[in-house]
């Protein structure tokens, strides 16, 4: 047993001396069985080469036909209202694939992107349960709390760099983003904004460097009295690790001011800065980062564009365009794009019809989620919807399929099983990776 395995699953023999600094100790070569995994009935699956995943979350439900699946334009103000997209589509780098006019920068990079246009499920009314489903890939059961995709990836692959967390979140923590039965050590380290940094690792503003060393000296006798090779000693060792993490090695990642002003400007708003921070953390070896984009103050409702939330939705889309396109280009520039899968998720889409206030309700029968980079064979768009993007015409993709695609891209076989106590639980609920994106 190890005391540092907060973010990675593999036990470490007690003999390994604590010489190298490590975020949390790991032994990447540990046998499968020791991780609680069962290699049962492993089905042959495509295997990608991605090492990292940036999972962008558009909370509220992105209107796919106003973004990545444009159709004939509608009219929210007419009498009667006419169903359809809110904005005209534009051509992209991939012939025949269009996106809405407010995604011009992403459009130019669509050869690195696949808009999966035929994601679907059947949970429509409530954001929380749909959010839970898209994060865990499973319906709640009442017997098990399922882990989020971030926790599963962290559990499966640990951090790339053992000195940093495997799974981070820039957004609000919630059970949907939690580790479920995998336990707290596979949970995320979160921060709610790029300025204040992650809780627990950002020193309070008034704790100056001299105070940091004074505190260390004052703590020393209390640490020293702990008996060697005891449970308390394990805790004390974890404490030294925590204090190291609050130091410059890890925390330098949060100093975005070290980046060129032009790049920071290109990334755009706070959401863009989060994407930039995600790139820095990826570079330092974080495996999975969820980045939330639900800046309600841009249009009032975030992506949950009921009623007047629709009026300024284009600002939200432009915000996404700035950040997403810059992230793709920036990762490419750093040679990280093939190693980093970008997935854009949302709890559901929105219907082509407009509501009484000129906005849109919820639609789960068909909606888009996006994949980019990660060494996949991108095709601009995958799956075909009908003329108002309400029904699937070709190639439906279930949420478990989408999860399986993410796992496969990261080299994880989605048919593996996790153990909830004594109960085997497959990584995905029968998900099959989208074969067209591999090979």
């Amino acid at each position, binding site marked *: *047993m*190890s005391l540092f*395995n907060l973010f990675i699953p593999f036990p470490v023999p007690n003999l390994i001396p604590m010489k190298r600094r490590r*975020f*949390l100790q790991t032994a990447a070569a540990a046998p*499968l069985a020791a991780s609680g995994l*069962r290699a*049962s*009935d492993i089905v042959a699956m495509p295997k990608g080469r991605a090492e990292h995943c940036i999972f962008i*979350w558009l*909370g509220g439900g992105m209107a796919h036909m106003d973004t990545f699946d444009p159709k004939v334009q509608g009219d929210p103000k007419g009498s009667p209202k006419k169903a359809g997209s809110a904005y005209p589509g534009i051509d992209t780098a991939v012939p025949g694939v269009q996106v809405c006019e407010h995604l011009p920068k992403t459009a130019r990079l669509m050869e690195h992107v696949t808009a999966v246009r035929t994601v679907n499920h059947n949970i429509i009314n409530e954001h*929380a*349960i749909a959010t839970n489903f898209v994060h865990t890939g499973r*319906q*709640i*059961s*009442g*017997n*098990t709390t399922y882990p989020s995709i971030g926790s599963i990836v962290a559990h499966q692959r640990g951090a790339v760099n053992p000195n940093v967390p495997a799974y981070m979140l820039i*957004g*609000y*923590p*919630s*059970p*949907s983003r*939690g580790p479920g039965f995998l336990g*707290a050590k596979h949970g995320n*380290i979160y921060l709610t*904004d790029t300025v*204040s940094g992650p*809780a*627990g*690792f950002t020193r*309070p503003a008034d704790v100056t460097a001299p*105070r940091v060393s*004074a*505190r260390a*000296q*004052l*703590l020393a*006798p*209390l*640490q020293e009295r702990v008996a060697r090779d*005891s449970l*308390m000693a394990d*805790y004390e*060792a*974890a*404490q030294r*690790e*925590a204090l190291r993490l*609050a130091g410059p090695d890890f925390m330098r990642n949060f100093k975005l001011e070290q980046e060129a002003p032009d790049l920071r400007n290109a990334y755009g708003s706070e959401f863009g800065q989060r994407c930039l921070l995600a790139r820095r953390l990826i570079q330092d070896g974080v495996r999975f980062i969820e980045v939330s984009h*639900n800046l*309600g*103050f841009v249009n*009032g*409702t*975030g992506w949950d564009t009921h009623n007047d*939330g629709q009026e300024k939705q284009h600002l939200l889309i432009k915000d996404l365009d700035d950040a997403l396109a810059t992230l793709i280009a920036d990762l490419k520039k750093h040679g990280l794009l093939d190693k980093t899968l970008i997935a854009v998720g949302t709890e559901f889409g929105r219907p082509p019809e407009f509501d009484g206030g000129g906005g849109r309700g919820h639609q789960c029968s068909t909606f888009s989620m996006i994949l980019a980079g990660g060494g996949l064979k991108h095709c601009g768009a995958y799956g075909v919807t009908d003329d108002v993007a309400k029904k699937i015409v070709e190639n439906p993709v279930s949420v478990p399929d989408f999860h399986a695609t993410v796992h496969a891209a990261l080299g994880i076989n989605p048919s593996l099983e996790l153990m909830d106590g004594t*109960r085997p639980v497959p990584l995905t609920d029968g998900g099959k990776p989208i074969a067209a994106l591999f090979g």
Partner: protein
Amino acid sequence: MTRLVSLFLALNASAPAATDARDGAQNDSTPVPRNEPLVRWTFDGEQPGELKGKASLQPVGPQKPVYPAFPTGNPALVIDGKDGHLRLTEAGLPGTNLRFGNGDAITLEVWVNAEQLGNGSYVYLVGKGRNKNKAFSAENQNWALRLKGEGGEARPCFLFRSRAADGKENYHRWVAKEGFSPGSGWHHVAVTYQFGQPKSMASWVDGKKSAGGTWDMAGETMEPPVSDADDVLLGTGNGGGAGNTLHGALDEVAIYRELLPEVILAQRYQFSPPPPPVDAKKLPRGKVLVQVCEDGVPAKNAWPAFPPQPTETYEEDVFGIFEVPQKYVDTGIRGDRPNPYLLRAAALVTLPAGKHRLLVRGRNATHLHVDGRLLVDIGFAKADSGGHGRVAEQDKYLDLGPDFRFAPPGSQEKWVELESTGGEHLFVLEQMVGGVVGSSKKRPETGEMVVAVSLQGTETWSLLSPGERRVDYTDAGWAAYEQERRTWLTVFNTERRAKVRSQHDVYWTKRRAAAAEWLAATSEVPVPAPVAGLPAHNVVDHFLNAKMAKVSAQVAAARKDGVHFYSEVLPILEQNCFSCHQGGKAKGDLSLDSLGAALKGGESDGPAVTPGHPEKSSLLARVTSEDEDYIMPPKGSPLTKDQVAVLDRWIREGAHWPELDVDRIEVTPLAGDLAFLRRVTLDTVGVAPTLAEIEAFEKDKSADKRARVIDRLLADPRWADRWMGYWQDVLAENPNILNPTLNNTGPFRWYLHEALTDDRPMDLFVTELLRMGGSERFGGPAGFATASGNDVPMAAKGTIVSTAFLGVEMKCARCHDAPAHVSTQQDLFELAALLETKALGVPATSSVPMDKLHEGGRKPLIQITLQPGSKVEPKWPFERFVGAGIGERLAENPKNSRDVLAALISAPQNERFAQVIANRLWQQFMGRGIVEPVEDWERGKPTHPELLAWLGREFVRGGYSLKNLSRIVLNSHAYQRATDPALKSPSPLFAAPAPRRLAAEQIVDALFAAAGKAMKTEEVSLDIDGRRDLKNSISLGIPQRAWMFASTSNERDRPSLSLPRIQAVCDVLEAFGWRPARQDPASSRATDPNALQPAILGNGTVAVWLTRLSDDHGVTELVLRDQSVEQLVDQLFLRLLTRLPTAQERELYVGHLLEGYELRRVEQRPGVQGPRYPAKYVSWSNHLDAEANALRIEEEAAARRGDPPSPRLDPAWRTRMEDVLWAVLNAPEWVFAP
């Protein structure tokens, strides 16, 4: 009885004087056009028409003073609801044309008192035609005004039959969207319509025009109405009978051939509600009498027409209410009051002469009557805005003085001046608590329900008081008052539920007698003799010591250089074999969890293990086979060569398998007094001992001081707080403060807390929990029944009940029969059906499709023996613990399967239950269960079966009291022994305790308590102004202890829906294993350390709060005391760590604090007060506003900054002291039981 009233012309029917009186009540500043009806019945003179059936004129019409437009004794037409009516033939009113054609306008108006009206029924008030009159067609409804019962209301309904030129006929029925409550006295109802113009339809109730209505039969029409000579009937129609006849009375019925102007209809209703029924002479002197009125309150946003009578009363000192005592039902569980109900507070208050200001506040509609006069009238609270309200609405606020308390969120308020000549006044404050809008109900919260007074010539406010008590109505004054009243409420509620529970004493006394009988009829567990050389305090120690003596002999016999079974062999078996070959139902009938079973072997292979002979051991043959159909394990990788070699050597060496995994048996001495005190205090009340508690214990020189401390702690009310987190986990309490959909329960935490506070016997507890009665949304056991978003809630509850109380794990059985557990899916659904109280279907989602089962090649491990779609009858699936017959014999209600199930689980004959509970308690105190895992006994065997049996019997003997059983364990020598720091887990012999990581809740509670800092978080709610439907938003209050938190539920990811201070505490709790959501039950939590734990205590937001020496920090008070710096350091250590510092520690800290110590205190200059304004707040109602996001982000930054440091301390010295405090709070020993 038929009586001829009169035949009279309508023109003369209403005397001019009476008409003037009524019109005179209308607004006299507006000239009102006079409109003459075709006919009007006032029933106070001679009237047209004849009374038929049970109809009579009685002096019960609307009248003064409640209906000021009518004289006292005003007669009305009383209809009995079966067939009574008034009939007017055309011949009865010659010269008056009551027929209408297309283009004609009609107005029908009545005063009506509808005593009853069921939903879906239509009763006639006045109509022409459709009277089953043989001279006419059966469906000749010329026109009619009726009332429809809908949504608990009586709604105006207009009906006529159209007849087109081609003879085609249709009914056209229009029903208004709004009505009045039946049984709420007299109401004025009118409809206006112009035939042929369907859009002209309108209705009025009590002068208020309806927001619209629906043509719900054949739609609108331009066709003309049927128009014939049939009779006009009042009070019934359509042939009469109870379904068509008014139950109540009519007055002032009038028919017009015009659309009566709105200005007239709006003013018809004159209503002056009677003063509340408070008898000033009977009011308690110097007290506020509070009356809860549950009956006679309409289920809508309206005051009852007549003041309802109280259903319960209690007293307060002043006019300040924030919470009403709980309503307890059944055996003393929380129940719901009707929603809404009316809350009344009344007192005689003496005021000096002068012009005084009065302030009234409340959440919902509120009235203040002074001396019988309605002085303050606050309207009904705003409806849910769906989140679209604006934060800027808070820019306007009431500010009535220099230390005025601003209204808290969700308050309505008004202030008035009261001129008193001095002396006694009768104050009556009333509020409608809760409320209904459509199908939506509001939480029944009073808000801050107050009357405050500011006497002439003063600027300050105090709560209006009839007696001596004075409560300043300032922020500080209110906070102190609320705290004091909460303490009182807790005691009062405890008494109230004890009283309710005592009504069931007869039955529970019988249960106790049955338990005593069983104890007497069964043999006691023999207690082993004391073992020489091993210490013992009580019987528990005798059991442990006997086992220790036995096992130490075995340990001595084992080969020192042989394969070590527990560290080398068992892990291989556990990883590769136990998922199928362990427990109650082993595959191939082969069990590998004991030597005996392995020697016996399975059904096909012969002995798995033959000591000394690997070649005769099928275990080895199986793991080394290359045959796909034979090799074990069947799935996954085969065993490595090294692993096979270990097994081979182990068998060769004789397969030594000691009974318990012990290498050394070292009994530690008793822990020191302070270590014991810290441990037992944390274990019983969940926080560390205070300085006073430490001092008292150290002063006590009696021989039984430890036993006395244990008794004191068991009687401490904080006992309940300590155990909450445990039971919340075990029973999967999982409330959600926002739109519950994630397998959420109701907040039955409040029930749990009260049950623990009362030390309710566990058999009663099980019964109450399984009955799932009382309040669902506000803390009764009914909340346990809920499982939002779950397709078979009772199956989920079945798995909770079976693990919690019987140690039977059934979660696999939710969808299939598990390979290694005895319970089948059938068993779980039988249990679920008992909870459902009827047969239960198995949905397809609770199964595994057959094609999935056969994906692999070999026989599937799991089996489906219960097909989806099957119906499963309620049945007790645990005959192995106790026969089903005892259930009906013992249950209070043998007809109710929940009662029967509860009796079966908690019957003394079911020894499993008592032992499971005893084992759970033991595990919590001793760090390890006698059986592990505590929730799944099929996977473990008791280390001390006799002790367990004995503890089970003691639990029954002690009346199923957790406290009585705890007393036994806590008094044992084994519990009180010193920790052996070398142990990583407690010795299975309990020779010494291992360091035990505290639960997350203990860590957080102990930190805040020892620091002397309040948590001061937000209310656990996203609807603090109470605007939402109670189904979608609840409040869990402002947490005082860690168990009161819940997930902040921000799945929406909106900054405006964040709760930064709550999140900060949850971050600490989560790092240490607390679960923000409990979708499934858990009986233990992982306790292995990780970097996040010390990180969050070192640098997290809570760490900032705990180490900042703010004015309200307990350590600030400590450092300000007159004492030497050495004394300060000693006190600090005692207070935080329950020990004195070592010499080295003392030297270090004293050295650090010495500089500037003498000058640490700073004289405080009176601060300059800036402008005061209320803090703006975010609630669901305004959370979509951009300003709400900005506000929350600022709150988050403020939380992170923490409170400002105390100006009473020199900043440089304070900083040093804070660093010392930080170090002590971050001592590794903080998170362990000593």
